[in-house]
């Protein structure tokens, strides 16, 4: 994936470990899009967050069409790698994109026993 694609992914995320007050680095995640006719989720991208808790290059502008998307964050594995248990084995955020001209920032603020997300910019 070229650097231009990475800097212009219309879907971005940022994972923060609010329990420790640090970015959640090296968390596995995946992006999926719903095929409405088949009613199944198509896997588009898998990756890991970097040291800053971000995962550039999730999707290209060309591939970014209106529809239902899902980001699955492997939070359970993340906490396990830190030697801790967690209430949530994973987190899935399902969101709706109606206008593919707009960017979508889907952050995750996560601790062992809570998480939150919002539509950001």
């Amino acid at each position: 994936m070229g650097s231009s694609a990475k800097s212009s992914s219309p879907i971005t995320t940022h994972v923060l470990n609010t329990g420790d007050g640090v970015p959640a680095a090296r968390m596995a995640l995946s992006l999926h899009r719903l095929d409405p006719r088949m009613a199944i989720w198509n896997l588009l991208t898998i990756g890991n967050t970097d040291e800053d808790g971000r995962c550039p290059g999730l999707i290209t502008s060309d591939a970014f069409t209106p529809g239902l998307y899902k980001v699955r964050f492997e939070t359970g594995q993340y906490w396990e790698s830190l030697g801790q248990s967690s209430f949530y084995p994973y987190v899935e955020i399902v969101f709706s994109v109606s206008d593919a001209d707009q960017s979508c920032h889907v952050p995750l603020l996560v601790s062992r026993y809570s998480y939150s997300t919002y539509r950001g910019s």
Partner: protein
Amino acid sequence: MNRLQHIRGHLLADKNMNIATTPPSPLTTHVLNTAQGVPGVNMTISLHRLNPISSEWYLLTTGKTNDDGRCPGLITKENFIAGVYKMCFETGKYWDALGETCFYPYVEVIFTISDSSQKYHVPLLLSRFSYSTYRGS
């Protein structure tokens, strides 16, 4: 009969009618509409348990939140075994009924019950463009 006796009679009558009350569900939820500062009323929710062998979700309960955003009777103590559960909140339909769109067509919270003797509270704080959840009491 004096007034106090009259009132006491009413209270005792109510208690008799509710003899067969079921114990509260060990798993509870509470939906708050944080955008409007009100409970999330009349939201459809469903509770599922993961079958670890087939990796399929088994539907346990469906219900709607009441005027306080709660949904009593989600599960009985007998059915509440250790495992992975999923609570699905129909957030898109909720906001649609209020004449608004929502970024999230639904919210699924997947959580692990390791000790089924404990009580678990899985609330959802929701607006059109954000939500949060936590393990409460």
